[in-house]
């Protein structure tokens, strides 16, 4: 395990309309870090996370991404007609991952609804399907937007365990979160 920086954003700023959302934000994540982005609704947590992921261009500052990252947005990326199994199979194919889909589905607790179209799934089951993408391919940085949303107690425990084992394996997690965190963070960034 090394202490090399896996993701670094320096002096980031964002403007929404006429308003400065934040400026001069510095984020750097090393192996084992869990960094929580806190702030009220509309304070720019998602915007910062999207800038770090490379989905939107920062209005100021730069982002370096030496390590590959996973992105779980607040939208799950699921289509109404997809089943959890077909969704995971699809992205495994795109990424060239050889992971066993059935194993991942049973680990995440989706064995039973594995072949049910997502329009019939509950919000929590959809969230679990999206989070299951993290297991398709090992990537050192996880960027999670409100990962605990819609999860039941059991799901929260599972996700906490996933995050902990990812950190133990030398990964870093950045998560936007409101409300109480069910997990101890290395650092909190308040916007």
């Amino acid at each position, binding site marked *: 395990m090394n202490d090399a920086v896996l993701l670094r954003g320096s002096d980031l700023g964002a403007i929404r309309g006429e308003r400065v959302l934040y400026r001069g934000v510095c984020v750097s994540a090393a192996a084992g870090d869990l960094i929580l982005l806190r702030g009220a609704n509309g304070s720019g947590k998602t915007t910062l996370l999207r800038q770090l992921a*490379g989905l939107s261009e920062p209005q100021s500052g730069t982002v370096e991404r030496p390590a590959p990252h996973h992105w779980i947005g607040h939208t799950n*990326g699921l*289509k109404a007609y997809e089943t959890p199994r077909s969704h995971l199979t699809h992205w495994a*194919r795109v990424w*060239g991952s050889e992971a066993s889909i059935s194993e991942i589905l049973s680990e995440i607790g989706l064995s039973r609804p594995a072949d049910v179209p997502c329009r019939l799934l509950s919000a929590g089951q959809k969230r679990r399907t999206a989070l299951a993408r993290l297991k398709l391919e090992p990537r050192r940085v996880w960027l999670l937007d409100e990962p605990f949303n819609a999860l039941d107690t059991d799901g929260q425990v599972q996700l906490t365990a996933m995050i902990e084992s990812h950190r133990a394996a030398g990964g870093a997690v950045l998560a936007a979160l409101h409300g109480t965190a069910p997990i101890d963070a290395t650092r909190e960034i308040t916007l």
Partner: protein
Amino acid sequence: MSASPLVSAFRSSLSEAWANGAGLLLPLGFFAGTAILVPFTLGPEADLLSRVGPGILWLALALSSMVTLERVFQADLQDGALDLWLLDSGSISMVAAIKTLTHWLVSGFPLVLLTPLLGYGLGVPAAKMGPAMLGYAMGGLVFFLWGGVAAALSASVARAGLLIALLALPLYVPALIFGVQMVEAGFDSPSFLFLCATMLFALGVAPAAMGAALRLAAE
């Protein structure tokens, strides 16, 4: 980049089209509906119909290509799939191109297959049917590509149908002009070559434009 993202994009677009079964038939119904209604508005003279028939089919093709384009990228933007494509596919332009081409294959190409039937109904001479079908296939591809650009540009706009029409229709004009002439003049005409050039230009430029537009839409 490897081919697997593109193959997956093709397969997922196909299953998306399959899942929206009724939406798929919409352009087909639009195309057939226009071609069937026009004789009633123009009167029953067979001469007139066989003369304007190919042009009417071009018009129907151009308009029906736009009917379903609105949702091509908008759905991806709303459900977050676009973010994943942007981050992990290697090239969003190629993925967008594949999606548009699949769209053409599924809802544009059937129009070409329907052409002999509708053309026969309008009294289009059999000799013109070959050039007409090839012309519709190529022109349809151009329409779907430029329509895809318009759809990508307006992905973040609610009820973007009108905007798509405004953006895409001017881009349709060259293919429309050369296409209509080519059906008249056959394969040995400069119009055919110009139609080919229009198609190649669209194939070269539209994917990059779609990629840039989608990046912007995701911001």
